[in-house]
């Protein structure tokens, strides 16, 4: 795949999402239904990415203790839930992941 085209494509859709709302919406009213739907987008999209990566790191469901992604993922959920601190979540989550992998001898 041509990398330049990829970046161009990503850039255009990203700008195409950011700009119109900022520049035009002052003159337009967004339907309230759309605004409500948009508020669910980050949670839905990011969760849909997280869950398969954590539960199916090798394309088959693995809920065993040897799944470092799952173990560290749960740790990260707990840390994030209690601290709401992104940096702490990343550091403890990654640390836990690397440690667990070393411990189970992956």
């Amino acid at each position, binding site marked *: 795949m041509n990398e330049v085209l990829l970046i161009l494509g990503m850039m255009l859709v990203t700008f195409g999402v950011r*700009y119109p709302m900022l520049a035009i919406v002052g003159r337009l009213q967004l339907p309230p239904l759309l605004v409500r739907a948009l508020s669910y*987008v980050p949670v839905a999209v990011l969760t849909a990415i997280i869950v398969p990566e954590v539960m199916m790191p090798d394309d088959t469901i693995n809920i065993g203790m040897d799944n470092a992604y799952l173990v560290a993922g749960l740790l990260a959920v707990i840390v994030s839930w209690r601290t709401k601190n992104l940096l702490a979540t990343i550091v403890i989550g990654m640390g836990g992941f690397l440690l667990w992998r070393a411990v189970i001898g992956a």
Partner: protein
Amino acid sequence: MRHATLTIMTTQTTTIYTRQGEFLAGIKDTFPMVIGAIPFGIIFGAVAVAGGLSPAAAMGMSLFVFAGSAQFIGANLFSQGVSFGIIVLTTFVVNLRHALYGASLAPYVKHLSQIWLLPLAFTLTDETYAIVISRYQQHDDSPYKHWYFFGSEVIMYFNWQTCTLIGIVAGQQFKDLANLGLDFAMVVTFIGIVIPLLVNRPMLICAIVAGVTSILANGLPNKLGLMVAALIGIAAGMIAEEIFQRKEVKT
């Protein structure tokens, strides 16, 4: 201080807002977000290169796309050989929330010229939005709040480029970083972003439904499972919101 306070002899205080004052205040207030973005940026650079993107392409993504989660996902999909169309579509979906930010800020910036709106839109991110919307909602009449906005974006942008660069260089030096499972860095960052957003039951339901659907739909070709899970998750959240509101109205 984001403004100079001028005290006149009659003990009347006037606040003077300046472009420079607002600009510097924007930078200063964004600093905590900048710190949070540092590991994210470095890890992106390393993971992108480890996944097969050329250093120039990884840098290009940060320079021209400037969207952390979309970049991460894009680099991840690229390393899995997913097609151009799907990556671009996924980028679109992942960045859709920026439309919401734009809509929310629009009333405050509609007086600005395109020379301002174009760069302000180009570098709009979650972090800048959070900082800037607070400033705009403060009830003062500073005419230079867009300089605050600009300052916030400038510091985020330059920090992101620097961190990407560091990550790219580190990723090249330590090629076996990829085997360490650095793709988990993306997962843990997203967890850290999503959990604080689950503030009510509809959001929680949205997340649960999206999560379950993403597993069920995992076999779909072209990563369509992601889209399907996201759409069904959004629908579930909206329906839950409706149901809970009706229940409240009844009681």
